[in-house]
């Protein structure tokens, strides 16, 4: 809402032309995607280090996932008032235990690492989510780019036809002060694919080409008079959008073409199908895919809700890990599952758990991740680490950025000239990576 308000007063020329094209050409012309596709001027840039993983699937557990009932069962804690009825189960990695809510994911633990001492300074949903996504605290004066936008900006596309930053099941954050083409392209419903990417039924190829030719004719004299980079960029914008409309890469968004068995493997939930779409996009070399899953705000009736959520989560996540591995894509793809904060180790009066910013968990898997690792251990009451140090969101993002070979110390300047970095001042946690 915030960013929507901001954009109300300043419709950029680029957006204006895009809207104009939409009206003139009678096609949707990817009202969203058009502005997300890179222009030829922005090509793939190799990072300072060879990338251990080139794609990131960021599974975001919105509203505060209870870490004790998922990735960090605490066997030391008192069962009645802390751990509750959820018991730990062994995993494919020696000595690593997950909660019984994640039996399928447990089979992939040898490919994954868990950080159990995450800590955030924000105990409210919006602020915590913002911090986790941007590495910076929410401020009234500036909108920070999300981590996916940073990746898009710093390393560019591998596939030059599809946008590089895609958010499934709802968009969180924006490209902030970076160019809007780096921001997340939202896919509201994974089964519906990319909205407005098809020409209208009545518009056949000849008529479409005719309209395009007319548009070009009308533009020609202007282009001739003002042959400038910015003006040419508008032409590129049309061309890119049309390229995607006609490209076979558009099929990447078509989850419906997957066999039923595959859809069932991921689970027919929005999250499961989102993971399936994420896998398809990784096959098509999209850099950053975020799959959002809400419903974790379990202030009351925690154990039932978490078990329900975990059914979806476990199915989707384990299918994703399995599918990527079978296709040989897992070693190129990093999967991160995290939430804005954890939930109180102590069970509250309503059999629920409240917000808890100390010692929650982040799950990392895939390329470059040191499989079967657990970093950090919290004390009985889940307040302080007894092993390892607290890891803040910026450091988690730095860890991901390091693994993906991104430039951590490159500075980008906001319009007002203030310096910002990919992962703020975060330091990569090399304990969970194969270095």
């Amino acid at each position, binding site marked *: 809402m915030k960013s929507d308000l901001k954009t109300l007063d300043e419709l950029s020329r680029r957006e204006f032309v895009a809207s104009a094209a939409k009206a003139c050409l009678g096609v949707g012309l990817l009202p969203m995607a058009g502005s997300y596709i890179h222009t030829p001027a922005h090509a*793939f840039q*190799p*990072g*300072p*280090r*060879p*990338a251990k993983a080139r794609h990131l699937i960021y599974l975001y557990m919105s509203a505060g996932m209870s870490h004790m009932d998922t990735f960090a069962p605490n066997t030391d804690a008192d069962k009645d008032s802390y751990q509750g009825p959820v018991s730990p189960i062994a995993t494919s990695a020696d000595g690593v235990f997950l909660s019984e809510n994640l039996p399928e994911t447990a089979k992939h633990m040898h490919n994954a690492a868990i950080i159990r001492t995450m800590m955030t300074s924000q105990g409210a949903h919006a602020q915590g989510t913002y911090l986790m996504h941007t590495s910076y605290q929410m401020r009234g004066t500036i909108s920070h780019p999300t981590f996916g936008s940073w990746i898009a900006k710093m390393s560019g596309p*591998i*596939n*030059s*036809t*599809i946008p590089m930053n895609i958010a499934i099941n709802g968009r969180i954050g924006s490209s902030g002060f970076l160019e809007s083409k780096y921001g997340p392209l939202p896919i509201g419903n994974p089964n519906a694919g990319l909205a407005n990417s098809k020409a209208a039924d009545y518009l056949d190829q000849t008529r479409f080409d005719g309209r395009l030719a007319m548009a070009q004719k009308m533009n020609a004299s202007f282009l001739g008079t003002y042959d400038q980079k910015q003006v040419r960029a508008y032409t590129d914008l049309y061309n890119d959008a049309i390229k995607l409309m006609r*490209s*076979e*890469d558009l099929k990447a968004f078509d989850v419906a073409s997957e066999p039923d068995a595959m859809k069932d493997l991921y689970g027919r939930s929005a999250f499961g199908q989102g993971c399936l779409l994420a896998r398809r996009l990784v*096959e*098509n*070399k999209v850099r950053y895919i975020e799959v959002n899953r809400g419903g974790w705000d379990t202030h009351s009736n925690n154990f039932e809700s978490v078990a329900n959520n975990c059914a979806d989560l476990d199915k989707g996540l384990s299918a994703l890990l399995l599918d990527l*591995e*079978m*296709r*040989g894509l897992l*070693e190129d793809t990093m999967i991160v599952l995290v939430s804005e904060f954890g939930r109180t180790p102590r069970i509250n009066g309503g059999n629920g758990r409240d917000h808890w910013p100390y010692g929650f968990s982040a799950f990392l898997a895939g390329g470059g991740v040191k499989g079967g690792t657990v970093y950090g251990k919290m004390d009985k009451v889940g307040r302080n680490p007894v092993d390892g140090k607290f890891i803040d969101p910026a450091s988690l993002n730095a860890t991901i950025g*390091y693994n993906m*070979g991104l*430039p*951590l*110390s*490159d*500075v980008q*300047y906001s319009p007002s*000239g203030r310096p910002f970095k990919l992962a703020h001042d975060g330091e*990569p946690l090399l304990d969970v990576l194969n270095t």
Partner: protein
Amino acid sequence: MMGVGRYIFLFFYFFNASALLAEEPFRTFTAVSGQSFTARVLSYEGQTFYLEGKDKKLYPVPYNQLTTNDQAYLREVSQQGKIPIGDPRKLASQDTMVDNSTPTASSPEPEVSMEEPVDGPRLMAPPKKKPALRPGSFFAYKSVNLGQDPNLALEMKSGGPPKPGEPIDFSNHVLPILEDRCFSCHQEAYEKNGKTIQPKAGLALSTYDLVMKGNLDNTVVTPGDVEDSYLHEVLTLDEDDDMFMPPKGGPLTTEQIDIIKRWIEEGAKPKAGGGGVTDASGGISFHDHIFPILEERCLDCHGEPYVKNGRTIHPKAGLALDTYEAVLKGNLDGAIIDRGDHEESTLYAVITLDPDDSEIMPPKGDPLSPEEIELFKKWIDEGAKEYPSDVFERPKEEKVAVSLTSVADSKIPLVDQLGKRLSKPSKTQIDVASKTGALVAPLSEKHSMIRAEFSSGPSLIDNSAVGALSSVQNNISHLDLSRTKVTDSVMGNVKKMKNLTWLALRNTEITNQGVKQLKGMQFLRYLNLSGTKVTDDIVKDLSQFKDIEEIYLWNSAVTDKGVESLQKALPNAKIVF
């Protein structure tokens, strides 16, 4: 009879020796008192040189009575072993036993005066013994500034033993040992009771310069080479050995010897910013030319971490420039110096940006002067040496194939090892290779190995597109042909990529025939054949890849049985099916 034989042997020995040691030419020597005379040098012993005048007379002359020019000349001839050691009269006496000729005139006084030297050694008092303080004495405490971590500050102050992994500092770690155990004999010349006391063996160890200079026989420290460093050797000799040092007071402790050893191994550096040789003839060096600039302009932000108001202040961008190692190391984003190539060096790039550029370094104050920038440029191009004497050779260019034996170090990733042996492909080469729709990019900014992939619209890609990669074929380590329309005949081109480590043929029409052609690709570590038409017949061929790490056969026609026998042949490989 035996005696005669020995004389003859001696004769030959001496004859041979004099033949090897060609006589030095006559030249004019000048004493510090101003007198000069023509002579040639015959030999030396300790600090005394034996000069032979035109009148065939022998003059023993103390080294420090001569001008610096003469000293340099004598140092050179003696260090190069051009003149023998010892009194020529004694050397000659061996001679006399054979030919019985009369010895040369008996010890004439040299004409040069033995008076007080004008340009002589720095005179200083003999080292004072440290006062022995009662344990716990007030005076044994050291003062520490407020706001500092007392332990840290104390360590820095007292120059205590180096922590494991801490680089050895000459002044803090080495000098105290020398001071304690060596100075009593190897101190710079000093006055005592009207006599000048010279350091024993002409070797003074009281400053960094003197240690590095060595004595007339040779240098005693070879940076980086413990074996070749006499200073270390004499400390580790057998205690009964004549040359064992120190001769009195027992040997150094193993820790002390270790400190000296490490100091030499780390390049025998002086304390940062002090001491050292400032001769520019050996080229630009970090120590002499670059560090002073860094210290003045960069270390405010890029120094070592320090504590301020209870907070640790880290160097900006995680980049420290306070030591040579730190500069070479760069930060998490990689090296900032490409030895031998200033254009590839980030350090050079940021100091030469437009002054209005927000990235220019240093961000405050004037930009570096053109002279300073030129120093950086030359320094990098000369190989970014730490000392003038360091030798840097650029790696040899372009070797097409690497033998398996030369890739032995398993700690360094294979692609990095391969990359080091190849030069970076030019932009033109990459542009040519990219023409057919491939994304061709180095693995990282400065890597010479390349990943080639067909990500956008793979169905338009056929065999010919792979042929276009030939301009960079030796540099390709990763090739992704997934979902393209390539057929078996593409393998002819793939096979030419000798350094290929990673090959994805997922969802292509490739069959056994194609995969068979990969035979002999010794660096292949990852092979993705999922969704291809390969069958059990390929197992035999795949079994030949003894070093392969991952094979993907999911969705292919290979059966469980085939995979089983493949796994048996390649027990260490990860086979996914």
